[in-house]
């Protein structure tokens, strides 16, 4: 499809709902230097069974001045700024790559993957379909390929177990996951607004921005503001915020639950370690791997600066009621220029209003044609 056609289509169909989001993207893109396109070499020419930390960690040239972890006035490693965890690395290793013990894509394979994914992003709206009535990521520069993303050549983000696969789930965990996924799929009737999924209603983005903070389809952008006592992480979509206290306070009783859990942080050397519990069950459309989490789900995240424009993010999922053993994944966060603009998703959610109106109009039309 040509750009002109697309523009014409968009001028008619672009929902005001995302005006704020697009504006943000425009601001971000407008101020960004082009994404660094040079894939970093694998951090270690990988044959070791245990995959190393994210490959995107750029190694400084040997001659350069050694990089020193930047610190806040309080002496803590400085995680502040605007970041994205966009990447084309898969969470789980494909079975063929497990069999071949292939930990990294070759440069050719990697480039082909990125190209293919960018094309898929562009082609995601097919003219004349319902999906097409939404908007076109590519037109507005929202797709990953037009924005900075980590050059991560690994065949999986999962580092443990070493095969890069999510461990087996208990029968109980599988059932929980199935039930929640089924409940999610049967949502989507339009008899009442509550039938529509949480993400479309701007309650929490779908899939939830975590924790864990998994890469998103688009606008997976974050802002961190850090004081001596607390770290705030803003997630751009729906403007969701986590506040992580650093004062070693105990967690509240499990009767108090947040959709994004309740987090506690502390410094281990230069690594910010965040432990999160007290998740509620609600989020629909969690990454399938996390759909079955139990009340005893515990997440540990580790954030460590690795360069001027990167930090490593690693998370470990522990939930013996759901997984036969804990599992760990990692990915780099890459600096973007920002700023991140106010999302105000619900405030401009004409999509829901029009969807509900449309459903009642369809009811009325059906009632007029009995027997047809």
């Amino acid at each position: 499809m040509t750009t002109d056609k697309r523009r014409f289509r968009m001028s008619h169909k672009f929902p005001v709902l995302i005006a704020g989001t697009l504006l943000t993207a425009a601001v971000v893109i407008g101020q960004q230097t082009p994404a660094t396109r040079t894939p970093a070499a694998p951090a270690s020419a990988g044959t070791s069974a245990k995959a190393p930390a994210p490959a995107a960690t750029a190694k400084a040239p040997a001659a350069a001045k050694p990089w020193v972890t930047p610190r806040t006035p309080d002496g803590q490693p400085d995680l502040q700024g605007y970041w994205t965890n966009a990447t084309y690395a898969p969470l789980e290793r494909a079975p063929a790559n497990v069999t071949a013990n292939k930990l990294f894509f070759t440069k050719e394979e990697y480039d082909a993957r990125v190209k293919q994914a960018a094309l898929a992003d562009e082609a995601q709206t097919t003219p004349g379909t319902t999906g097409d009535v939404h908007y076109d990521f590519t037109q507005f520069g929202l797709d990953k390929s037009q924005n900075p993303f980590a050059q991560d050549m690994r065949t999986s983000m999962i580092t443990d177990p070493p095969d890069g696969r999510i461990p087996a789930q208990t029968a109980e965990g599988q059932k929980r996951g199935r039930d929640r996924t089924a409940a999610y799929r049967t949502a989507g009737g339009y008899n009442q607004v509550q039938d529509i999924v949480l993400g479309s209603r701007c309650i929490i983005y779908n899939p939830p921005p975590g924790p864990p903070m998994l890469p998103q389809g688009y606008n997976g952008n974050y802002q961190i503001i850090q004081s001596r006592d607390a770290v705030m992480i803003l997630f751009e979509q729906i403007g969701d915020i986590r506040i992580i206290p650093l004062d070693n306070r105990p967690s509240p009783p499990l009767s108090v639950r947040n959709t994004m859990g309740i987090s506690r942080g502390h410094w281990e050397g230069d690594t910010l370690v965040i432990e999160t519990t007290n998740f509620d069950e609600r989020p629909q459309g969690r990454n399938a791997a996390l759909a079955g989490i139990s009340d005893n789900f515990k997440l540990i995240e580790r954030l460590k600066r690795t360069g001027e424009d990167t930090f490593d993010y690693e998370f470990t999922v522990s939930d013996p009621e759901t997984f036969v053993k804990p599992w760990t994944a990692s990915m780099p966060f890459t600096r973007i220029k920002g700023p991140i603009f106010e999302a105000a998703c619900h405030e401009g959610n004409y999509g829901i209003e029009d969807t509900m109106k449309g459903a009642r109009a369809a009811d009325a039309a059906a009632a007029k044609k009995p027997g047809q």
Partner: protein
Amino acid sequence: MYDPAHLPKKILEIQQMHSWRRFTAFLAIAVIACLAIVMASIVSMAGQQTPAPAAATYRTPRTKDGKPDFNGIWQAMNNANWDIAPHNAERATLKIEAVIGALSAMPPGLGIVEGGVLPYLPAALKQRKENFEKRFAEDPEAKCYLPGVPRFIYMPFPFQIIQGTDHIAMVSEYKGALRDIYMNSTKKAPADSWMGWSNGKWDGETLVIDTTGFNDRSWFDRSGDFHSDALHVVERITAASPYHLNYEATIEDPQVFSKPFKISMPLYRRMEKNIELLEYRCVEYSEELIYGKYRKVPLQ
């Protein structure tokens, strides 16, 4: 050289008497002055919740980079969210009362507006009255919209200040709303927004925040006090003790008000050891109001 011992006794007595009288007079004046100050502050507090006269001597503990340390969780303790002007208790409607009883009533309040009256332009005053009539359906808080400024400050929810290096974050428990304050920045709003674009700077003990770039959709309270997109808010926040901040703001909006006006109130530190912001995702509690009319089967 003056030496009282050399003066005749009579003169000495007169002088002592004078000095006693002077002292008495001084004492009387001092007592009257103190009373006047106390009375004035009582009157003024009763009138508009003006913070107690700032103890000019209080020096806020500093962060490592030498800035006054406002980190922590704070909350206003007044009824300004119902109406920023002085107001009496008031019924919602009998229909609403029939469902939730006295939970629906507006509690009274002395307001936070200096002088007690908002200087509305005539057309704007008419709009305010219309807003008041429609308040249960139209208040952006009922729809779980972002609170705007200054309403963010006196929503009946705690908010947390996180002082970063180049940004100060203020996060409200209400909706998880964020005010991102750009420190020492001269950037202008790239577009209008609910929370506006805030540039902050330190003026000695005081955090001064200049906010513009608002849209015209937020209200100041549940009574329909409103503004246009020409709103300009300058806030001054100064610690008066380890436990409270004095907050004042000048509100300017030539499309709605004939002149700028000031609001002020103390903000209190939440002292509970376990205080933290929890999730209040109010969107889902607003949907029946906004979209209920599209139900296939109306609620019974």
